[in-house]
């Protein structure tokens, strides 16, 4: 049986309570590294859930979402670099290390990038769309590699995490709680979003664009809006990641990162609210377990992914539900 309507908010609240208590529990268990791992899960959860807006709800297979993730990271990194050096970006934009400025800036810039890339890519659909989003992400990858002023290949070190008034961001736990707070707000907004009129349209477009045109919907602008929102979410995650790692590098935009985000979405269940978060958790856990066994951990990831795609329909959530369903 699927989880009842009343049960879901309760489970969400229970998970939230657990996440709030996590740093203390991790300390008590003598596993402080667990907190950082969960922080990464939360951040990737935001990125994957953002990708899921276009991928799962809208049916647009974007293979270039690492671009927006990376742009978010670089916005934080570049603003920090100018803050540290004192000379303004392009001669007139002062640098900053205030999260309350850098985070919205990252969301805005990645949204603009998504607007441009989406406006071009959405002129096509299907397999071309996949190839084009991948290609544009690769283009931005090369762009950041060539920006020697911002570290080029080596990436950009952010000496200190962005500051938030009244909080001590040098404390790793505080950074974790900031990530958790952003994640919570993000998923509340997303929960409202998936029940909105806009999401209705998106849902319809995934199932049949022809039908939606026949009832009078001009598809392009809605798909583009979804793409921009999705890019903004990924940018937000990237900005958090840059703060968490205190590092932004071209690796954040690498095409394998786009692939990983897609894998998280499918592991968790395409087109579900919390699926991508669960998928991120499974992926990160899998990665750390396999990596502790062998340096060739990607082999394991590849095989599991292949199995999930070929033999399960709907990711681990559906798999778990089916297994539970079989037993009862």
């Amino acid at each position, binding site marked *: 049986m699927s989880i009842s309507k009343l049960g879901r908010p309760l489970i969400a609240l229970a998970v939230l309570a657990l996440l709030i208590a996590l740093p203390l529990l991790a300390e008590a268990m003598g596993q402080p590294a667990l907190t950082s791992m969960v922080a990464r899960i939360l951040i990737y959860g935001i990125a994957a859930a953002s990708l899921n807006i276009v991928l799962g709800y809208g049916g647009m297979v974007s293979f270039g979402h690492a671009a927006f993730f990376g742009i978010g990271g670089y916005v934080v990194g570049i603003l920090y670099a100018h803050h540290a050096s004192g000379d303004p970006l392009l001669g007139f934009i002062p640098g900053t290390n205030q999260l309350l400025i850098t985070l919205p800036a990252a969301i805005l810039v990645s949204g603009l990038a998504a607007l441009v890339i989406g406006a071009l890519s959405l002129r096509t659909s299907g397999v071309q769309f996949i190839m084009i989003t991948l290609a544009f992400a690769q283009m931005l990858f090369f762009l950041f590699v060539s920006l020697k002023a911002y570290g080029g290949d080596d990436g950009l070190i952010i000496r200190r995490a962005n500051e938030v008034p009244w909080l001590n961001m040098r404390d790793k736990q505080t950074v974790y709680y900031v990530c958790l707070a952003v994640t919570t707000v993000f998923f509340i907004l997303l929960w*409202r979003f998936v*029940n909105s009129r806009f999401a*209705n349209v998106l849902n319809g477009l995934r199932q049949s664009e022809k039908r939606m045109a026949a009832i009078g919907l001009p598809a392009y602008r809605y798909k583009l809006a979804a793409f921009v929102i999705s890019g903004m979410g990924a940018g937000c995650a990237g900005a958090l990641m840059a703060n968490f790692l205190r590092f932004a590098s071209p690796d954040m935009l690498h095409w394998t990162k786009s692939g990983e985000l897609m894998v998280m979405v499918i592991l968790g269940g395409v087109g579900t609210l919390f699926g991508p978060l669960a998928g991120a958790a499974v992926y990160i856990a899998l990665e750390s377990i396999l990596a502790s066994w062998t340096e060739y951990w990607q082999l394991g990831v590849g095989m599991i992914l292949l199995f999930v795609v070929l033999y399960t329909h709907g990711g681990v959530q559906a798999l778990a539900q089916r297994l539970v369903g079989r037993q009862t």
Partner: protein
Amino acid sequence: MNAPILAVRGLVKHFGGLIATDSVDLDVLPGQIHALIGPNGAGKTTLIAQLAGELRPNGGSIALDGRTIDALPAAARVARGLARTFQITCLLPDCSVRDNVAIAVQIRQGHSFRFLRNAHRDEGLRGEAETRLAAAGLAGRADEIVANLSHGERKQLELVVALATRPRILLLDEPMAGLGHAESQQMIKTLRALKKDVAMLLVEHDMEAVFQLADRISVLVYGRVIASGTADEIRRDPEVRKAYLGDGDEAC
């Protein structure tokens, strides 16, 4: 004399060397059902697709209420009051029956750029969807997923969804295809009751239904309108008998 609500002049469409629509002229008057008949492959569905804006014609002009709509994409034509149903039903398969209607209501109302308010509890959408379903006798199926509907129910739902856009002219692509006798009779009744509000262009193979419903009939063969007139005129037309009604048994 009424001005036509839909006026087609010299419409041409070819695919490579094949002519699918050959200088078609067609008028649909308000309050009327205009049937379009013709053997398989005559280009009826292609014509509908051009009228709906899904396919761009190579030449000619289409006017809705006296204003040309040639430049408008499909979605914009719906906003002007032109709706269609599909021969092979084209619904949102994973959505409930109610949501299929509600989404059409929502798009008609506009306001689809709303991101945070819960649309499923929006009485303006639910209420109208349920009223429309009740009128079509589908109220009991509102919560069913479309993929679980019978063929006949889907055909009915196609019509309900199209009507939810509040069209003034409706293009019906074989609404009776695959229906049983009782279901067909029901559909005929529904369409007849509708026609005072909505003009219709009806593509249909079921001749019995066509002769019961149509105020005017046009006959399409190889993309050309070879005859146009009342049901009686068409029945008597020698060219039509030769080209079409002669092998009508096969087509039905």
